[in-house]
C-alpha cells in the first residue's frame, strides 16, 4: 500500500518533538552527506544470492498451519449472512429456524451482539488496521449490499452454512448511490488530511498553446482482492484476553485495533500470523475477525471463521474504479510543456482513502507545467482499500498509454520520448532523486526484448489470423519506510535469532531478512533464524507499501549497533578488541574485528563465553523515515510486451513480456524474480480481464467467484523475463528498495500499447476484452 509524500509530511509535521529526536538518532547513511549502509559494499555475502525460501519445505509438505487450519479445543464454526440491499434498515430478523437447526450454538445479529467501539480506520492512527470504521453489527443500519447482518456459530461448518440459509431478514430499503452516475457532488480527494492535488505553473494554458497534444480519458473498473488464501481467523478468549490466529499483513496494528474495539489493553490481544497466503493490501482488519471475536465472547467458545470466496467479495474491499483524463502538451522536440492528470474515483464514507491515481505522475516527467487532481465522491458500497500499488497500478495505465499516443503523434520512438523527458530533480517536490536509472533499465530491456524489431506502424505484422504488436511503458513505485520499525537480536554461541513483528505472505521476507541479518552479523546463513508474524514481537511493521525490507533491514541494523556496543563492553580489556569503539569494528566470521586491522578479532562465542553469558539480547528501533524528506525515492521499470490479437475474434494473448527493473540492490534474485513476475501477472489481469461487476441497480457484486471474476490462468501467462540494474540506492538500508508492488505498474499500459501496435485500435476502457477489438 502506498503513502504519498504529503502523508508522510503530515505524520511528521504532527510530531515535531519526535522528529527532533529522530534526527539525532538517524543513521547518517540516510541523511545528506552520510555514509551508505556498509552492507552495500559487501560483495561476497548472502545478499545477492538466490537463496531458496526458508519456509518452502514446510509449505510444500503442508506442515505450515494457516489461520483456517489451526484447531482449538472446543472450537465452533462461523458462517455469515450478508445484506441483500445497499442501504436501509433491517426491519425483521427471523432466526428461529436457524437457532433450532442441528448443531447451532449461536445466531448473532445487531440485537444481541456485544457493544463494540467502531474499528479504527487505517491511517487514522499509527496502529489503526481496519479497512473502514463502520460500526460492526451495532445497529439496524445497512450501509452496503453484502454487509454482514447475522453470524451463525455451529459445531460444524456445514451446519453453520445450512443454518445461515434459514435466516429470514426483511428490510426497509432507502435510495442508494452505487455508481459514479448516481453519486453526489465530487470533491478533491484527501489522503492523511492533505488534498490529492498538485500544481506547477499554468498547465491548462501551456496545454492549450502546445503544438502537439494528447487529451484522452481512460477508465479502469473496480477490482477485488483474490489472494490464494481467503481471509480467515481462528480465535479464543482466555481470562479476558483475546488470542487470534489471523491471516494478516499487520499483526501489531491488528492487535492494537482489536483492543480498541473490545475495550481492552493492547497487551490483552495477541495476534499470531506466521503464514499468510497472499496479502496484496487486503489482509488487514475487516469485519470477520471482529464478528468472530464478538461471537466467541457471547458463546464462550473458540471460533473459526473462514470466509468463502464470496465472503471475501462481500466483506473485504478492493480497488475503486477510476475515470482519468490525461492531457499532454509537447513541443516539436517532444519535450513536455504540460501534464494534466485529473479524474474521479469513488470511495465510501467509511474508507481510508480514494484510489490515488495521480501518484505515479508526480515524479514521472520533466514537464514545465503540471496539474494533478483526484476528485472523489461517496458511494454505498463495501469500502475500497489498498490493492497492490494503489494509485500507481491504474495511474500508470492512463499516463503511460497517453505517452504512447503522444510518441506516435510526434513520430518518436516511445522510449526516446520518455528519455527526452527524464527529470533531473523531482518535478513536483523539487527534491533530488536518491537513485534513478530508468534510462539504464530501458536500454537493457530494449536490447534483451528485441525492441528494434518493432514496426512503429500499427497493424503491420500478421501471422495467420493473429496481429502481432509490441508496446512498452514505464513502471514506477516509491520507496517507503514507515515509522515503527524495531527488531530484537538474540545472540548466543551458536548464532543469532532475529525477532520482528514482520510478515511472510509468500514474498520471501523470512528468507531475505535471514540473508541480510547473516551479512549484518557476519554469520553463516544457517546460523540465523528469523521469527516473525506475531504481535508479541518487536516493531509495528506493516507488510505494505513495499516497505518491509527497508523497515526490518534498518531495524536490524540499529539493533546490530546496540549489539556491537554491548559486545565491546563485555569483551573488556582482555580482548584483542580492547579499547575499540563501535565505529572502529565490524561483524565478520561470527565475531567482531577491527575495520582496518582484521587481525584484531574475537568471536561472539569467545566474548560471550569469557563474560559468562549464554546469550545477549538487544533491541533496536528504526528512526523516523527522514530519508524520504531529503530525496525523491522511487523504483522504476521498463516494461515490454508482445501481444497477439486475433483478427477474427478480437481475443488478445500476451506472447512475451519483459520487465527491466531499477529497484536498487536486489537482496535475493530468486524471490525477487517471483515478486516481479507475480506483479506482472496481476498486471496482465488488470489489462485484459479483471473487473468486479457491481450491479448499479442494487450495488451488489455479481461475479463473486473465481469462475466469474477472471484472473489470468496458466495459459494466459507467457514466460516472463525479468532483469534488473542492481544499482544500489546509497540512501536506503542495504541499497535496496521494495519490489512487492512495482510489477503491476506499467504492465497494463505496456499491454494496451502492444495491442495498439498490433491492431491500430486504441482501447482506453479497461479491461481490454475482445468485444472492444472486434
Amino acid at each position, binding site marked *: 500500500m502506498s503513502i504519498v509524500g504529503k502523508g508522510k509530511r503530515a505524520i511528521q509535521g504532527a510530531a515535531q518533538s519526535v522528529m527532533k529526536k529522530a534526527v539525532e538518532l538517524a543513521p547518517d547513511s540516510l541523511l545528506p552527506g552520510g555514509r551508505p549502509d556498509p552492507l552495500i559494499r559487501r560483495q561476497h555475502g548472502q545478499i545477492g544470492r538466490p537463496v531458496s525460501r526458508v519456509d518452502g519445505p514446510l509449505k510444500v509438505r503442508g506442515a505450515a498451519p494457516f489461520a483456517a487450519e489451526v484447531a482449538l479445543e472446543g472450537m465452533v464454526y462461523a458462517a455469515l*449472512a*450478508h445484506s*441483500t440491499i445497499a442501504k436501509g434498515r433491517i426491519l425483521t430478523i427471523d432466526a428461529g429456524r436457524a437457532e433450532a437447526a*442441528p448443531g447451532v450454538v449461536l445466531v448473532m445479529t445487531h440485537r444481541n451482539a456485544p457493544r463494540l467501539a467502531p474499528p479504527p480506520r487505517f491511517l487514522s492512527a499509527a496502529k489503526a488496521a481496519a479497512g473502514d470504521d463502520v460500526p460492526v453489527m451495532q445497529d439496524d443500519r445497512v450501509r452496503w*449490499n453484502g454487509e454482514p447482518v447475522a453470524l451463525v456459530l455451529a459445531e460444524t461448518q*456445514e451446519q453453520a*452454512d*445450512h443454518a445461515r*440459509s434459514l435466516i429470514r431478514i426483511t428490510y426497509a430499503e432507502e435510495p442508494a448511490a452505487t455508481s459514479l452516475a448516481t453519486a453526489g457532488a465530487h470533491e478533491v480527494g484527501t489522503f492523511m488530511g492533505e488534498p490529492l492535488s498538485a500544481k506547477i505553473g499554468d498547465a491548462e494554458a501551456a496545454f492549450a498553446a502546445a503544438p502537439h497534444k494528447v487529451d484522452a480519458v481512460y477508465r479502469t473498473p473496480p477490482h477485488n482482492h483474490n489472494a490464494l488464501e481467503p481471509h480467515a481467523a481462528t480465535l479464543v478468549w482466555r481470562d479476558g484476553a483475546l488470542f487470534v490466529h489471523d491471516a494478516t499483513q499487520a499483526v501489531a496494528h491488528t492487535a492494537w485495533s482489536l483492543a480498541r474495539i473490545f475495550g481492552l489493553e493492547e497487551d490483552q490481544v495477541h495476534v499470531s500470523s506466521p503464514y499468510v497466503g497472499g496479502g496484496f493490501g487486503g489482509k488487514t482488519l475487516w469485519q470477520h475477525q471482529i464478528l468472530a471475536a464478538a461471537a466467541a465472547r457471547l458463546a464462550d467458545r473458540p471460533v473459526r471463521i473462514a470466509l468463502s470466496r464470496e465472503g471475501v467479495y462481500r466483506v473485504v474491499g478492493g480497488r475503486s474504479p477510476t475515470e482519468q483524463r490525461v492531457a499532454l502538451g509537447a513541443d516539436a522536440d517532444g519535450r513536455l510543456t504540460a501534464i494534466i492528470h485529473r479524474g474521479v474515483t469513488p470511495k465510501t464514507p467509511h474508507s481510508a482513502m480514494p484510489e490515488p491515481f495521480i501518484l505515479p505522475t508526480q515524479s514521472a516527467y520533466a514537464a514545465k507545467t503540471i496539474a494533478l487532481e483526484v476528485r472523489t465522491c461517496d458511494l454505498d458500497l463495501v469500502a475500497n482499500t489498498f490493492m497492490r500499488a494503489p494509485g500507481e497500478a491504474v495511474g500508470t495505465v492512463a499516463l503511460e498509454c497517453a505517452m504512447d499516443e503522444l510518441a506516435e503523434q510526434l513520430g518518436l520512438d516511445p522510449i526516446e520520448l520518455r528519455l527526452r523527458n527524464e527529470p533531473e530533480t523531482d518535478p513536483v517536490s523539487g527534491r533530488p532523486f536518491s537513485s534513478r536509472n530508468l534510462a539504464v533499465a530501458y536500454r537493457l530491456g530494449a536490447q534483451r526484448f528485441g525492441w528494434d524489431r518493432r514496426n512503429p506502424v500499427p497493424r503491420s505484422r500478421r501471422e495467420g*489470423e493473429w496481429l502481432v504488436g509490441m508496446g512498452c511503458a514505464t513502471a514506477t513505485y516509491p520507496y517507503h519506510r514507515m515509522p515503527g520499525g524495531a527488531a530484537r537480536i538474540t545472540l548466543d554461541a551458536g548464532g543469532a535469532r532475529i525477532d520482528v513483528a514482520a510478515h511472510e505472505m509468500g514474498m520471501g521476507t523470512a528468507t531475505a531478512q535471514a540473508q541480510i541479518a547473516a551479512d549484518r552479523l557476519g554469520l553463516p546463513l544457517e546460523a540465523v533464524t528469523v521469527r516473525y508474524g506475531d504481535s508479541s514481537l518487536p516493531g509495528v511493521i506493516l507488510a505494505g507499501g513495499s516497505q518491509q525490507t527497508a523497515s526490518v533491514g534498518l531495524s536490524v541494523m540499529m539493533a546490530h549497533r546496540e549489539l556491537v556496543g554491548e559486545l565491546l563492553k563485555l569483551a573488556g580489556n582482555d580482548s584483542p578488541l580492547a579499547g575499540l569503539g563501535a565505529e572502529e569494528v565490524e561483524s565478520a566470521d561470527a565475531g567482531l574485528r577491527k575495520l582496518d586491522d582484521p587481525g584484531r578479532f574475537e568471536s561472539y562465542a569467545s566474548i560471550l563465553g569469557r563474560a559468562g553469558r549464554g546469550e545477549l539480547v538487544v533491541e533496536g528501533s528504526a528512526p523516523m523515515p527522514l530519508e524520504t524528506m531529503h530525496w525523491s525515492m522511487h523504483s522504476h521499470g521498463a516494461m515490454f510486451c508482445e501481444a497477439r490479437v486475433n483478427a*477474427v*475474434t*478480437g*481475443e488478445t*494473448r500476451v506472447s512475451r513480456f519483459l520487465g527491466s527493473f531499477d529497484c536498487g540492490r536486489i537482496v535475493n534474485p530468486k524471490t525477487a524474480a517471483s515478486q516481479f513476475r507475480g506483479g506482472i501477472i496481476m498486471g496482465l489481469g488488470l489489462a*485484459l*480481464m479483471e473487473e468486479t*461487476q457491481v*450491479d448499479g*441497480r*442494487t450495488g*451488489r457484486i*455479481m*461475479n*463473486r467467484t473465481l*469462475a*466469474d471474476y*477472471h484472473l*489470468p*490462468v*496458466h*495459459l*494466459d501467462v507467457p514466460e516472463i523475463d525479468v532483469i534488473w540494474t542492481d544499482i544500489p540506492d546509497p540512501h536506503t538500508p542495504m541499497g535496496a528498495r521494495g519490489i512487492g508492488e512495482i510489477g503491476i505498474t506499467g504492465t497494463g499500459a505496456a499491454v494496451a500499447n502492444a495491442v495498439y501496435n498490433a491492431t491500430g485500435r486504441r482501447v482506453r476502457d479497461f479491461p481490454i*476484452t*475482445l*468485444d472492444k477489438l*472486434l
Partner: protein
Amino acid sequence: MTPFSYLRAADADTALQLAGVHARHPGAGHPGVEHPAAKYLGGGTNLVDLMRETIERPGTLVDVTGLSDRIAETGDANGNRGLLIGAAVRNTALAEHRLVRQRYPMLSRAIVSGASPQIRNMATVAGNILQRTRCAYFYDRAGSRCNKREPGQGCDAIDGFNRMHAILGASPACVATHPSDLCVALAALDATVHLSGADGERRLPFTELHRLPGDEPGRDTALEPGDLITAVELPALPLAANSAYRKVRDRSSYAFALVSVAAALSVENGTVTDVRLALGGVAHKPWRALTAEQALRGQPATEAAFRAAAAAELAAAQPLRDNGFKIELAQRTIVAVLGELAGHDRTGDGA
C-alpha cells in the same frame, strides 16, 4: 448445504428404484414418481456447487457413476458405424477415445476446451448434458430474482450484467445460456439420447433434449421427473471426420464460451455437399444452426457463401445491453471455422 441422503446405484433399474421412480401403470393419470426431490449425481462438478449455493436442494442423491462407462462401437447391416457412449463415461475418457478423435474430432476438441483437466476427469457425459446455466443471477439466491430458480419471480439478468447471455431463442422470462461445450458438438453430430424412466426406455434426438426457456425457464430439458440418461448414441457420420470446434472466450482456459462453433463440412468439387453446424454460448440450449446448414448445402464453398449462411442464422438474434457483440462474433467465428474445414482435405484424418 441442505442435509440430504446419499445412495449409490450400479445400474439403471436400481437408480430408478432408489430415486422412487415406478413403472407407470397404463391409464394412470399421475407420474409414477415417488420422490421428485431425488437427483441423480454424476461427477458432481456442477450439482454439488448448486447444492452448496442452495440452488438445488434434493432430499436424496442417487449416485449413478456406477452406470456404464463403456464406449462401444455400433453398426448396422450396411456397415454404418456409430458409437454408444455410456452415461457415466468421464469427459476425459471420451475426449481421448481413439474412435472419437478419428471420426468425431469436434467432440474431442469441444470437451478439452471446457473446464479444467481435474473437472473433466470427474465430469460424466450425462452430468455434463444436464449441467445448468452459469447465469450469476440464477446462482444468487439471496440477492437476485430469477425465473429459472423461482418461477414467476422475475429476471434480473435482462437489464443487468448479460454479457454472457443469450442472443437467440430467449424469452422475456429468461435470457440464460447453456454452458456446455460437449453439448454443442452433440447437437451438431445428430446424437440420440437413451433414457430410462417411468415410461420405460425411450430415445430422444439430442437437439430435442434441451428446451428454449419460453415461459417455463425452470425446465432446462424435455425430461420428465425421474428420467435417467443411460447413454448417448452417435450415428455414423462420415463428414464428421472433417470437423472442428472453436471456442471464443475471455481468457485462454477455464472460461465459458462467449461464442462457440461446432462444424462438420463436406465439400466436393468446390461445392458444399453436406454440413453440420451448431453454436454454443448463444442460447438456452445448444443451438443447432439449421438455417445456415440449409443455406449452405449445394452452395460453393466460398467465404461469401459462409458469410451469407452465418448472417441468415443470426438474422433473428436479439441483443441485450452487454452482448450485442456476440452477433458479429458468432458470424465471424462460423466463417472462420467453415473456412478452415473447407481449406483442408482431412477426411479420415485424426483430430
